[in-house]
């Protein structure tokens, strides 16, 4: 499996997400802010992103929008870097899903939502079940 990118400014949340995915792959990259995550996305094109929505500096939706813009420029300059597969995104947030406005994106597909308000076991179980479906 290609890399899984975990983007979250909260170290505890990153630790839980890492635990949930660690049995599926050893290729895990963590980023504690949206800016660094954009760099990873452009260079590594991860298969799956576990994305916190509310972060300082760059929110989840701003990160997606910026990544889309930069990917568009890269592909304009180098069409050989066209990637037909979208990157899957799991929204990982304490924001309620109904309060999140998910942007339309040519490069990212929002596949699921995991709430940080859920007990840890529910968060881990949900992330693992999403990964099993993606195998």
């Amino acid at each position: 499996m290609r890399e899984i990118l975990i983007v979250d400014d909260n170290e505890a949340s990153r630790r839980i997400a890492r635990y949930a995915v660690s049995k599926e792959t050893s290729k895990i990259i963590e980023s504690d802010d949206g800016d660094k995550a954009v760099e990873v996305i452009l260079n590594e094109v991860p298969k799956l992103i576990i994305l916190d929505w509310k972060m300082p500096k760059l929110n989840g939706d701003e990160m997606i929008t910026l990544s889309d813009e930069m990917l568009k420029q890269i592909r304009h300059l180098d069409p050989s870097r066209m990637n037909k597969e979208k990157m899957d995104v799991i929204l990982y947030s304490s924001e309620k899903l109904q309060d999140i406005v998910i942007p339309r994106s040519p490069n990212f597909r929002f596949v699921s939502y995991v709430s940080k308000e859920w007990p840890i076991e529910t968060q881990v179980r949900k992330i693992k079940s999403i990964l099993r479906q993606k195998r």
Partner: protein
Amino acid sequence: MEYQPQIKYLDKIEEMYGNELLIDILGIFQKQVADALILWKRHASSQGLADLKESAHKLKSSARSVGAFALADVLQKIENRTSTEGLSKDFLNIEKLYMESLTAINEWIQKSQLRRDGS
């Protein structure tokens, strides 16, 4: 005892996932709260509400992950605030709840250590 629900929660997570994940998260939680308390004490009068709300938002998730649900609820209140009126009362409440949570965590760590030493 008011610590028991949190201890039971920690027992359950340990049973499901072992204690490595839990020890990591507990350490992160303790550090985050300690840092936040220092920050809030220093800047309670001058800190912008937005910064305090952001700090509360981050801590809330960590608090829930270690079973400190009462603390998470107070942090949620701060996150929902539109003014700083009565904030000092919230801070006192947070300190109290954090100390209770810390006591629960220390008690759980001792129990967990005894279980492992006995096995």
